[in-house]
């Protein structure tokens, strides 16, 4: 058991006198959008996010497809808005432990609020980070560089407050001695807040498919095989490197390959479905790479290009016109050469289906999505149903897509199934409307 787990075991139970209209679980773009819509309608919202900052995965992206708008420029105002809206109470670094339906439109929820070991006086100056001597992989950069055990999640985190990662802390006290406002407090204790809510909205999103399972691709073993989420970080304004460079030695890549359907449409990995976003985010990254590295070759290995949305086909054609090469063929395996380059073995479908190989100096695995739906386990008394692949099951996909198997519990975004950002925001709006209709129907 880690140090933090030992401390969390001693959480103090508190009953909150305040009740809320809606508990929104998940502070990514779906949870933020739905919370803001509901709060603007006058409902009291309790928004719970398990990470130390709201923002979810959208904040981490470079740009969005097909418009190439800056992802963080769109998401940061929403992150700030949920923290300032008078009708929204935000708990970050908190987890929902239990939701129990007592009667219609009456749910009791227990929420674990974890200690950050830094008081709200923190100004986010970052002095504690500078003096902390422990370096560990930074989660928000998917391990591409390090962070300290005392850290601020990222530059525009909401709230922009430091926290101490006690599982990696050596208890040297440097952070505490350095903090100019005396905000570090190792004596903070966790608390479990018990609240009553009238409705629940699940917006816990997705996780990336664990592509280590596809051992033929060498992720985790070959330094220059990265995921598309890592590539998005490399292309983002808040990027972990000073440029797009390969992790094995910091060299600027000259030949970059994308392997589509990595972990999607793959029965050997028990994930037969299309993740819906990989084709277009790869086309987006290809275009951005051709801008960032004009001399580099970009090759996309694909089974089918699914450009089904508004403007997607034009976006795909634009990538081709810019010089991205599209090779139809499933990549079978990847090998590493002595100088950290990578050999891709693939079925060359457009040339008679022969086995071919090509050498690249950076490989991006366009990794699919899997549901982040463990939240079903916190429901007591009634079952929040999932489908056979783990996505939350809609009550009726045709007429009630955001209603779940429990009346009064709604869902929105990727926890219902893979989808892109515009569809997620649209679904969040629909869920907010359905929650409002439910609350109006059941009355006070």
């Amino acid at each position, binding site marked *: 058991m880690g140090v933090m787990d030992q401390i969390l075991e001693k959480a103090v139970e508190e009953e909150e006198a305040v009740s809320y209209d809606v508990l929104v679980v998940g502070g990514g773009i779906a949870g933020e959008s739905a919370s803001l819509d509901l709060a603007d309608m006058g409902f009291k919202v309790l928004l719970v996010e398990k990470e130390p900052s709201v923002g979810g995965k959208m904040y981490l992206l470079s740009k969005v497809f097909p418009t190439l708008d800056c992802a963080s420029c769109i998401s940061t105002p929403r992150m700030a808005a949920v923290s300032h809206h008078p009708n929204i109470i935000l708990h970050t670094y908190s987890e929902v432990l239990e939701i129990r339906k007592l009667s219609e439109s009456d749910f009791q929820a227990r929420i674990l609020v974890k200690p950050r070991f830094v008081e709200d006086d923190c100004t986010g100056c970052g002095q504690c980070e500078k003096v902390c001597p422990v370096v560990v992989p930074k989660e928000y950069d998917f391990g591409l560089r390090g962070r300290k*055990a005392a850290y601020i999640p990222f530059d525009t985190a909401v709230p922009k407050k430091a926290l101490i990662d006690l599982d990696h802390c*050596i*208890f040297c006290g440097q952070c505490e001695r350095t903090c100019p406002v005396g905000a570090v407090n190792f004596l903070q204790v966790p608390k479990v807040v018990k609240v009553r809510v009238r409705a629940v909205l699940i917006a816990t999103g997705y996780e990336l498919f664990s592509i280590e399972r596809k051992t033929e691709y060498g992720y985790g073993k070959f330094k220059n095989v990265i995921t598309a989420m890592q590539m998005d970080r490399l292309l983002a304004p808040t990027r972990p*490197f000073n440029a797009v460079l390969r992790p094995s030695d910091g060299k600027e890549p000259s030949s970059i390959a994308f392997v589509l359907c990595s972990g999607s449409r793959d029965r050997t990995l028990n994930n037969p479905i299309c993740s819906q976003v990989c084709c277009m985010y790869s086309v987006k990254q290809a275009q951005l790479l051709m801008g960032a590295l004009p001399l580099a070759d970009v090759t996309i290995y694909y089974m089918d290009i699914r450009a089904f949305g508004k403007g997607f086909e034009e976006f795909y054609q634009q990538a081709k016109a810019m010089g991205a090469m599209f090779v139809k063929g499933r990549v079978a395996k990847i090998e590493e050469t002595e100088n950290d380059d990578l050999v891709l073995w693939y079925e060359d479908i457009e040339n008679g289906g022969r086995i071919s190989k090509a050498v690249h100096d950076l490989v991006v695995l366009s990794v699919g999505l899997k549901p982040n739906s463990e939240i079903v386990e916190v429901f007591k008394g009634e079952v929040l149903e999932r489908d056979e692949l783990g996505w939350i099951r809609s009550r009726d996909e045709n007429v009630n897509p955001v209603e779940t198997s429990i009346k009064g519990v709604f869902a929105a975004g990727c926890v219902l199934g893979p989808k892109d950002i515009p569809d997620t925001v649209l679904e969040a709006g629909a869920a907010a409307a359905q929650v409002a209709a439910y609350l109006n129907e059941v009355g006070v």
Partner: protein
Amino acid sequence: MSERRSTVVQLRNRSGLKPSKENVELMRRSKEVQTAITKALKDGPKTVPEIAKATGLSKDEIFWHLMTMHKYGVVEPDEKDEAGYFRYRLVEG
């Protein structure tokens, strides 16, 4: 203020918490690598392969720490060489 400053000591005393061997090793290794990088850069900007040659450390470990040092303002990129490697230099002051 003096009481606040001692919270880490109080936590250690109350809970009997000690730094784990793994975390001490993490700290020791990052200090060792970052000190070696700093020493190698004292006589001028270098690429990752040049730092590897000077220190005997692996290129991927050097680059990972170099980018962490970049985040905390210890090093900054300089010019790029013909092979596509940036040189890095120590930030003055």
